[in-house]
């Protein structure tokens, strides 16, 4: 077998369209034999929340309100054409009609392919999130130094 190639993605955005790009790259790369790491930070953490809708998760009243406003994967807004949350639903319906994988299907595929999911320790601390608030597939909670070590020798993208 050839030497393993590596792709590491920093998922900073919690936008529906940008997360779709993250998971399209991740699943495509994993499927053609790359080792894939995704490091979720700030808004990106919304993508790996256990609760995909809106819920008051956080360590105090302020982070709980933030948690509610940010929401999870199924309420991720579009970076453009959001139309108060209707935009992503229009895209989901278009994607289904055109037989293109939706964001939720891509996340499932990433998990089936063994893509490594990591959460940013600092952003979790700021937002009052704990590892138990995330899906079980999240492998670890990391900081910059560990992420750099994990991504070393491969390609890295910030989305």
């Amino acid at each position: 077998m050839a030497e393993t190639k590596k792709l590491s993605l920093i998922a900073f955005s919690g936008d529906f369209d940008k997360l779709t790009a993250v998971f399209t790259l991740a699943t495509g790369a994993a499927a053609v034999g790359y080792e894939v790491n995704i490091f979720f930070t700030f808004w990106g953490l919304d993508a790996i929340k256990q609760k995909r809708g809106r819920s008051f998760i956080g360590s105090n009243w302020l982070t709980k309100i933030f948690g509610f406003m940010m929401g999870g994967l199924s309420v991720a807004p579009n970076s453009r054409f959001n139309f108060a949350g209707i935009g992503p639903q229009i895209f989901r319906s278009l994607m289904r009609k055109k037989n293109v994988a939706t964001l939720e299907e891509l996340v499932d595929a990433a998990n089936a392919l063994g893509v490594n999911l990591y959460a940013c320790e600092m952003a979790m601390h700021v937002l009052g999130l704990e590892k138990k608030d995330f899906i079980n597939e999240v492998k670890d909670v990391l900081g910059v130094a560990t992420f750099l070590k994990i991504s070393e020798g491969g390609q890295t993208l910030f989305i």
Partner: protein
Amino acid sequence: MATHTLDITKEHCPMTFVKTKLKLAQIAAGDTLEVLLTEGEPLENVPRSAKEQGYNVLSVEHVEGNVHKVTIVK
């Protein structure tokens, strides 16, 4: 040694690769997988990435129109 078939002619990137990879992971070593796919990215890259991942690509045949059949042995 069983033969499995996978039709990805209606799929789009990245699910073309994803479905092939997951199917190859499911089948037993020595089994054959026949993948029906279309010209362009799937035809260029499914056999190439299967080879890179250590699978044996036996043949790439034209079926009809823009549909091709790639035979891979795990």
